[in-house]
């Protein structure tokens, strides 16, 4: 993978409007034992941000393994929030023929305030990028 992607910021994804129905569906799927919005809920936006990033750099989802995920919240997400995710590549290192990509996605609300910062480590396997669809 081209080292020039480090420090690049990719096109924002969103705005995504948080609905009570989607929160309820996600809560059921994660066997949520609380009220409010589950803390892993923004993975909905982060998936889209990651797919857009992979398409932009010509990498394929099939060769990506999710290695690590961390969320750091400024405030809880609430129903009605309009969220936007902006992904930046923070680091890139080679590990046994794979690229280990550190990404930081900043999730902001309609007023531009930061709601959450999400760090993901993506492991992209394979030595060549030409074969990636």
């Amino acid at each position: 993978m081209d080292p020039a992607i480090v420090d690049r910021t990719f096109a924002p994804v969103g705005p995504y409007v948080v609905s009570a129905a989607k929160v309820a569906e996600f809560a059921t799927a994660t066997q949520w034992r609380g009220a409010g919005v589950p803390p892993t809920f923004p993975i909905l936006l982060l998936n889209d941000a990651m797919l857009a990033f992979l398409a932009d750099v010509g990498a394929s989802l099939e060769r990506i393994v999710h290695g690590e995920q961390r969320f750091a919240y400024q405030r809880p997400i609430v129903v009605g929030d309009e969220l936007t995710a902006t992904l930046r590549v923070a680091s890139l290192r080679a590990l046994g023929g794979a690229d280990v990509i550190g990404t930081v996605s900043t999730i902001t609300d309609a007023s531009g305030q930061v709601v959450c910062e999400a760090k993901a480590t993506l492991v992209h396997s394979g030595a060549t990028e030409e074969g990636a669809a």
Partner: protein
Amino acid sequence: MSAETPFEPQRFTLTRADLVRYAGASGDFNPIHWSDRVAGAVGLPGVIAHGMLTLGLVGSAIAAWTGDAEVVELGAKFTAPVVVPDDDGGVVVEVAATKVSSDNGLMTIAMEVRCGDAKVLGMPKATVRA
């Protein structure tokens, strides 16, 4: 597991139906989470749970323990797959708190997350507003 914490381990059962439900809810339709054929082709021992589903269960355990406290930080490494068989029983994921510390209005909970004998998450940790 002999650590002294105020929190009882939380157990969650995952069946294939739960993986399908999470795929729909999250939008992650990677076939390794529902197709034996694709999972086998990429070298997995079988269909595996989404790592983010396992982390979601951790979030649920935190909510149960803390009475729905505000989560400030949550994260883990995805270190080993949770293999979910195509049967009615599924597998059990157990989330156990190993260390709880409080500082400055924040409570940090370190955990161990297991499926059978295997630790499936690396350094799972959460911080909540106490």
